[in-house]
């Protein structure tokens, strides 16, 4: 840390002149716009050491952060998308899927499985934003529903970490119906008294928010995450005025009673554990 502070001054000047930022060693923080040392950010679970901005992380990384080492067993990883609408777009839907697969190494926008968190057994689903914006379509809906059903069958707590732009256009009404399908499964879980913790990360919007994301027994969100039903651009176009500072951010939702708590990434595992130990 002291070493980091020592180089802080000269680096800012370098940054202003837009010169000689060693590729890959330094990154610009999207929160404070400062240049920060990448290793330092990574050491803090991808949180900016200067402004506490929570960088987006991959689903794999999230699982590594939350699950006890070596306990996570992925389920339904073979499920893959079809093209039920034969969707007409500038790029064919199957090609979009292929590109997303290549980019993420995943078959779809969510990873589901079971594992332990501080020794507490649970079912975990984590959305991968890099896979078509974490959008929900047939496969995501099916995988999440199966996770809920395993949770129900084994009376094992459910945790879903959301990161999604909503329902996926390319599967049309099949995507929309996943909202009803997953919510109906959650209704059964709820009746059985099995706890469900919903974790909202940046961003959680659209059809995912208007279904599984807002149905947690306990809803936690990382600081500064965009959370809402409509996207900010759509709202601005509708009301024809710019949105107030902090609108649809985690802290705004907490203030309006939509969340149980804001949880920093470094405390996420412990907080989930604490809650589940008292509910499960």
């Amino acid at each position, binding site marked *: 840390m002291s070493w980091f502070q020592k180089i802080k001054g000269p680096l800012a000047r370098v940054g202003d002149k837009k010169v000689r930022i060693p590729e890959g060693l330094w990154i610009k923080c999207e929160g404070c716009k400062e240049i920060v040392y990448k290793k330092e950010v990574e050491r803090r679970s991808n949180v900016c050491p200067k402004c506490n901005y929570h960088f987006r992380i991959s689903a794999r990384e999230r699982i590594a952060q939350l699950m006890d080492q070596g306990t996570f067993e992925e389920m339904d990883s073979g499920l893959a998308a*079809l093209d039920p*609408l034969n969707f007409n777009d500038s790029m064919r839907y199957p090609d979009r899927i292929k590109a997303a697969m290549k980019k993420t190494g995943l*078959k779809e926008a969510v990873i589901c499985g079971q594992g332990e968190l501080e020794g507490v057994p649970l079912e975990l689903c984590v959305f991968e934003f890099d896979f078509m914006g974490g959008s929900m379509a047939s496969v995501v809906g099916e995988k999440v529903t199966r996770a809920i059903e395993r949770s129900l069958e084994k009376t094992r707590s459910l945790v879903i970490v959301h990161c999604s732009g909503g329902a996926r256009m390319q599967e049309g009404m099949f995507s*929309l*119906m996943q909202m009803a*399908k997953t919510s*109906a499964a959650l209704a059964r879980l709820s009746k059985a008294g099995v706890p469900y913790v919903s974790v909202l990360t940046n961003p959680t919007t659209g059809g995912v*928010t208007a279904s599984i994301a807002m149905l947690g027994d306990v809803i936690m969100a990382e600081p500064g995450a965009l959370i809402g*039903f409509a996207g900010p651009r759509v709202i601005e176009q509708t009301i024809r005025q710019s*949105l107030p500072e902090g609108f649809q951010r985690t802290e705004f939702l907490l203030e309006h009673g939509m969340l149980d708590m804001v949880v920093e990434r470094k405390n996420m595992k412990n907080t989930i554990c604490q809650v589940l130990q008292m509910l499960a």
Partner: protein
Amino acid sequence: MAAQPIDFEKPILEMETKIEELQQVSRAQGVDLTAEVKRLQKKAKRLRRDIFAKLNRWEQTLLARHPERPYAEDYIKLMMTDFVELHGDRLFGDDHAVIGGLARFEGKPVVVIGQQKGRSTKQKIYRNFGMPHPEGYRKALRLMKMAEKFNRPVITFIDTPGAYPGLGAEERGQAEAIARNLKEMATLTVPLISVVIGEGGSGGALGLGVGNRVLMLQYSVYSVIMPEGCASILYRDSGLAAQAAESLKLAAKDLKEYELIDEIVKEPPGGAHRNHQMAASILRRVIRRHLAELICFSPQELIKQREQKFRNFGQYMET
């Protein structure tokens, strides 16, 4: 009809005007033009059939949004009696984009809820163009819970471009309101029949749509995103809405083919807006049939039927 006709309706309307003129001439001058009128009527019928058989998905979207189309309130008036409107969500306010209350259907009490659009400019604004705020969904849920308490079936009419994207709607939890409805509808212990009567706009429509039966009027549409929105995202041009409508497969017959809805309800020739009475009477008979089936189900069977139906939605492969 007072409203501007859609382009594809024009040739039909022109021919109808011509027939009317002939009939007037015949009456005024005492000339027998029966044969000619009959010939033209036949021709008009054929023309209409041909045009309506070839409607593309965008044209169907325009029909679904036709300002003279019967709205929820019209169907309630035309096929139910003793409607008692109930207001408010008991939390914040009363949403005018959603109407609901008690009514008699075939003489038996039901709870009816619908998204309501307005026809005049003043009414459109009052109804917020049929775009509900969270209060609308919460009012709907309150009424559904009342139906459950008094063991009355629920009929919902879906007709919205979408849930309202605005400041207040977000502040008061639009997403939570819809999500809660999805969850609560899934486990409702009374029969729930949802009918898309016009526009089924995404999550805002689904928020009233987790029915034991989901029906769609012949020229209604139901989509994950409205064509304009889809076009502006995909093609960066909302003018390409017609193209987007084709891609989205939002027509009633598409969704029936995908088995995402249970039945298509026929509309009068030329669409529901041409004959409200007939549209309501066809729909009434279809609802009556489904209701007769559903009232034989126990609460547990109703829940199970609804759950299984939605559980099966989705197409994917296991590799």
